[in-house]
């Protein structure tokens, strides 16, 4: 079977899928991306595509996304044409939908089957759009976001099957496109994201915690927060306010925050301003002792896991949007989690069963639920064990890869053509 992966980033969600397919000698795997960097993936041939130009700043802002998709789609055709000349014709194209790489791929390979990895669909006034009151969401935002669905639609019109990582993401897709849709998560490596050891019940590892320049001695209670970017979409301001309350109440408490001071989603800040700076200022003005608040920046995977293992209570917040891998990684590591009571989190966490939930906007409720766990080691252990079980049973990398490869195989054999 010949498989062509398309993703502007590399290797992104196909980090495990591409090399696992390539490990089978019966398969030939090419990965076309805009990126030059990134790891070598065993057996995976890299190809590169690049848009011939950028969008002109004068075009209508509502069609900028569509134009970017069309330019990416054309760039992929040029790359794919080279591949075709070299004799590579994919049986299946697995493409991330959103930046447009796959919109024209069937023009070149009419016989291939296309699997669309769909992360999101815009619903003005629902889910993420308009959720944060401070962001503001006006008529212009609504119309622009609605038009932005073009990038997904050009794929959906041609694709043979759609994959979304969670049910919540699938729920966003218009009903007519859900007939040929499967929910299958990218998966978490549950053999790597493990609790320290079953015997280790202490709040921090025997040797203490060492991440970045931070050294914490053993015996501290540690509240953790870790996302790619420290931003309102992931509830960073509310978390900091909750942390401020807890730091004032609990002299033994250390708060460790991992992530970049950048905004990946929603409204960017003016240059020079960052959410960590804003929140430190706010807490400092409220008289909170910041010496026990540690912003350690983005962490390499090993240190990130060490942080999760050392966590007494882990927190994860998100607006109703794409769920972060980090929440599943924390669950796999057996963290006791307080999550935001929002749809993507509720899909995995049942309050009181494998974590606790609190209102996204209510930082006092968050502080109270974190404290509830800080004071109850038995409950922490029970919730953490159940959280890990959730991931091992339903989101394990090996299992999920098996499902995805099975799906790709069925597509290649034409078994899903009549669905």
């Amino acid at each position, binding site marked *: 079977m010949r498989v062509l992966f398309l993703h502007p980033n590399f290797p992104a969600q196909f980090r495990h899928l591409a090399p696992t397919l390539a490990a089978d000698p019966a398969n030939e795997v090419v990965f076309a991306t805009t990126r030059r960097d990134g790891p070598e993936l065993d057996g995976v041939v890299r190809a590169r595509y690049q848009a011939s130009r950028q969008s002109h700043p004068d075009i209508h802002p509502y069609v900028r996304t569509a134009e970017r998709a069309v330019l990416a789609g054309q760039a992929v055709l040029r790359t794919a044409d080279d591949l075709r000349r070299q004799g590579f014709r994919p049986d299946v194209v697995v493409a991330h939908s959103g930046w447009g790489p796959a919109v024209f791929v069937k023009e070149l390979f009419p016989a291939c089957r296309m699997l669309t990895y769909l992360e999101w669909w815009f619903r003005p006034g629902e889910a993420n759009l308009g959720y944060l009151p401070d962001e503001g969401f006006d008529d212009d935002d609504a119309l622009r976001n609605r038009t932005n669905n073009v990038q997904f*639609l050009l794929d959906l019109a041609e694709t043979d099957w759609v994959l979304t990582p969670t049910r919540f993401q699938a729920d966003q897709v218009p009903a007519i496109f859900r007939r040929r849709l499967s929910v299958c998560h990218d998966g978490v490596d549950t053999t790597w994201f493990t609790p320290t050891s079953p015997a280790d019940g202490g709040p921090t590892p025997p040797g203490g915690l060492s991440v970045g320049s931070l050294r914490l001695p053993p015996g501290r209670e540690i509240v953790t927060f870790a996302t790619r970017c420290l931003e309102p979409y992931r509830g960073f301001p509310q978390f900091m306010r909750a942390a401020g309350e807890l730091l004032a109440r609990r002299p033994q408490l250390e708060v460790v925050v991992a992530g970049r001071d950048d905004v990946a989603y929603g409204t960017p800040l003016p240059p020079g301003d960052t959410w960590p700076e804003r929140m430190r200022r706010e807490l400092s003005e409220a008289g909170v002792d910041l010496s026990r608040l540690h912003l350690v920046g983005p962490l390499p995977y090993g240190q990130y896991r060490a942080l999760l293992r050392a966590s007494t209570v882990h927190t994860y917040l998100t607006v109703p949007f794409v769920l972060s891998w980090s929440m599943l990684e924390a669950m796999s590591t057996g963290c006791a989690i307080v999550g935001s009571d929002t749809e993507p989190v509720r899909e995995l966490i049942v309050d009181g069963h494998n974590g606790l939930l609190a209102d996204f906007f209510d930082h006092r409720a968050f502080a109270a639920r974190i404290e509830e766990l800080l004071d109850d080691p038995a409950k922490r252990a029970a919730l953490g064990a159940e959280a890990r079980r959730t991931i091992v049973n339903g989101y394990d990398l090996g299992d999920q890869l098996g499902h995805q490869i099975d799906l790709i195989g069925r597509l290649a054999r034409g078994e899903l053509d009549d669905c």
Partner: protein
Amino acid sequence: MRILFLHDNFPGQFRDLAPALAKAGHEVVFGTSEPNGELPRVRKAYFGRRREPSRQLHRYLVDLERAVLSGQGAYRMAKRLEAEGFVPDVVYGHSGWGSTLYMKDAFPDAKLICYFDWYYRPRGANGDFFPQWPMNADRGCFFRARNATSLLDLAHCDWGVVTTEWQLSQYPRDALGKLSLLHDGIDTGFWRPEADGRRARYVHRGLDLGAPELVTYGTRGMDPYRGFDVFLRAVELLHRRRPQLVAAVAGDDRIPYGSKPPEGSSWKEYMLGQLDLDRSRIHFLGAVPKLAMRQLLRAGHAHVYFSAPFIPSWSLFEAMSTGALVVGSRTAPCEELITDGHNGLLSDFFDHVELADRIEEAIERQAELAPLRETARATIDDERFALRSVLARQIRLIDDVRRGAGPTEIEASVADRVRATARDEGLAELSGPQRVAPHPA
């Protein structure tokens, strides 16, 4: 009920439906860019574009930007209507030029029904039909991108309407889940043969076509999409073969679809320059009013309607309804209505010699082929196309959508053609514990 119709060209496909609803006591507003025309009890509202598409935009997306600009205009119009106290229960709009794009934002509680004309396929329809305009990767991508506006409407509307099987067959299979197949209706009471079955005589604007052999042709414009060039070539042959044969062409000298001729900007001028026609026996009538058009159809010994694999014209339906002996092209839009030898004759789209032969056949076998005229009339004068039944069904459809009926319950729905979901196909075996499964609609 309050209903808002949207169509750039007033009244378009809603010319009968809008006044019928108004007459039934519903409050009807019609949003359009066309200042001319009125319909009884229907209030007009206007929208327009603030500017035209920018020159810096990718050429595949010029249609989309124009649609976005129209959509914004229609959105502003909707906000004005709202400020005046008009909030519709249903918006029923022609899709493709953008006016419908943002109606779910303007009126979130209203149901949006879109009338879909055409979905562009690079192959198997109009895209690769003409040998002189070959399909290639560039045009193929352009065709795909041209669907952007239709796809946005398909995704966001509550329901859609398509008028013929042929048009329906172009849409992505997922679209069937929210489409009805229902024509906008032909006024078969008006478009009917002469009461006593006699041949009429076309007399209009001082022209008296009392010809012993009259061949008629008439669509909106004159272009290869409707076989205009092939028809004129056939006439050239027939002028030589039959000294009494007269041809009459109704319609404007313009190009609604397709490309310009190799020289000049008029297919009429170009073809007249190419051919040796007896100008005393071919009449270009210009746009012919309804009543005179009916006379023309009643007067002809044969009526030629050709179409590339594209949207069929109203004129085909009207000609058949009037009992004309139609010589159609052997292409999907004609073949859906005409069965050769049953309710008309068919001829190869590109073969003017065959067309001339078939026209001759029609003329020579007038009496013998008379039953074809009756069958043609019966084809249109039935519940699929006759206005009186179609109007009732359109109104039922609107009401079904308004009250939130299920996809298969809506009038003329084709949702039951969507195959059983993959779940019933045993996809469960591919799934893990409930994780890889088709997502319920």
